[in-house]
């Protein structure tokens, strides 16, 4: 049943050009970044591994931002455009509804990743890191995106409003992203270090650094970064599960 929802979302996104717009924006940002990294006098002096690390951060960062904005309206639109009632009058379950919407958001991430491949290949030309870079952008990006989508869908089911969902989701994203951009010498105290260890975006960037700068390519060598990401996904999944239960308790039409 969820495949019908997934197909509908993809068709809708293609028809309204929403996805196309996101992909064009991603492509422009990646082009601009790659161009700067390869031609700017100071930036081009950086070691190639540093360049790749910067590009990896930008690809995943842009993807997380786009997914946050897009996923915030994927569920809530059904309530705001008053299509939810007709939809839930059919034999569709809430589980199928959520899975279909989740696949639609993951498809957007997959498309952003595909758009980034040529930039990754061009920037990593001449190094032996192209494949590892691709694999880790795919793995880390997917874990980050999945966790974020669970969180956003959970918020969507509670609020049922795009405006509230997007505001809350952007604040959370900002709260994770801002400390991750601080230099490591600013994270010397215990609280900063603990937050950094738990912060999914910090772990994504640290894992990329581990792979590209320190050449630690195997999954075992990155477990300390991957484990917090998996835990992040589990926590946000639990939150989504709880939100879905609350949603079912209140009914498709809210009591207020």
């Amino acid at each position, binding site marked *: 049943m969820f495949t*019908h929802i997934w197909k509908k979302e993809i068709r809708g996104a293609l028809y309204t050009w929403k996805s196309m717009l996101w992909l064009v924006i991603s492509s422009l940002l990646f082009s601009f970044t790659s161009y700067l990294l390869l031609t700017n006098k100071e930036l081009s002096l950086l070691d190639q591994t540093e360049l790749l690390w910067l590009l990896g951060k930008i690809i995943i960062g842009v993807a997380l931002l786009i997914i946050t904005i897009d996923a915030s309206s994927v569920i809530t639109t059904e309530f705001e455009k008053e*299509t939810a009632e*007709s939809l839930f*009058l059919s034999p569709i379950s809430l589980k199928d509804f959520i899975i279909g919407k989740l696949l639609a958001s993951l498809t957007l991430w997959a498309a952003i990743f595909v758009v980034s491949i040529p930039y990754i290949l061009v920037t990593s030309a001449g190094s032996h890191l192209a494949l590892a870079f691709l694999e880790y952008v795919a793995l880390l990006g997917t874990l980050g995106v999945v966790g974020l989508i669970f969180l956003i869908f959970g918020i969507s089911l509670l609020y049922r409003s795009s405006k509230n969902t997007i505001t809350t989701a952007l604040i959370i994203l900002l709260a994770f992203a801002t400390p991750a951009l601080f230099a490591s010498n600013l994270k010397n105290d215990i609280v900063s270090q603990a937050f950094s260890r738990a912060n999914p975006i910090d772990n994504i960037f640290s894992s990329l650094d581990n792979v590209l700068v320190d050449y630690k390519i195997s999954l075992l060598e990155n477990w300390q970064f991957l484990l917090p990401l998996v835990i992040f996904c589990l926590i946000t999944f639990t939150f989504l599960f709880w939100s879905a239960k609350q949603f079912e308790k209140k009914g498709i039409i809210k009591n207020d």
Partner: protein
Amino acid sequence: MSDIISAENLSKSYGATKAVDGLNLHIRKGEFFGFLGPNGAGKTTTIRMLTGILKPDHGKIAIDGYPSENKQQIAKVIGVIPESRGFYEWMTAVEYLGFFAELYGIVGKEKEERISSLLTEVDLMKRRSSRIGTYSRGMRQRLGLARALINNPQVLFLDEPTLGLDPQGQEDIQLLLKKLNAKGVTIFLSSHLLNEVSNLCSRIGIINNGKLVAEGTVDELREKTKLGKDKTLTDIFLNLTRNNT
């Protein structure tokens, strides 16, 4: 004949306001039941509870023998024109009905035939490939009816199905509903158009302040209100709802 819709002691409150208060309803298979009430009387809340969209605070509901907890089974036997009438505006009528048909597991040739026959019934065949966003209000109403019929339902819940339609459009829908009822489809019609209810329905329930204040044929309601034979359903309705306000 057995009850196809049964509601026992149904109640629903929104904060301190009791929208529906101890409602009992028993509708037999094949009946054309009219559900009347002033604005805010609890008609839409009742329909939403009967169709499983809203959970009652108290009471029991069964549709075609299935308890309200069995939502997916109930969804297969009912068709609904709900109060909220949102559409996927970027879809064409064929895509829209196709999407809902697939949700009911209707695929392939059967789906195409069902869509064609429904679009012909609701007179949208000529505009089948136009985007819903370009449809008039009346066309959307008719498309909503086609969607409600996509699964060949045994029970049809209609919340103001002719709202916003011109007299011709209203008559077309009424004729279609008569035809469906003649085929054995049970119809639960909520409407403000008392003439429409009077012409179509075999039995009428009147709700006021969340309570069912009267139920029966037009003659039975006339008898209950002790109004003369010359009085219309409008007189009966006003008598019952004003006295109970």
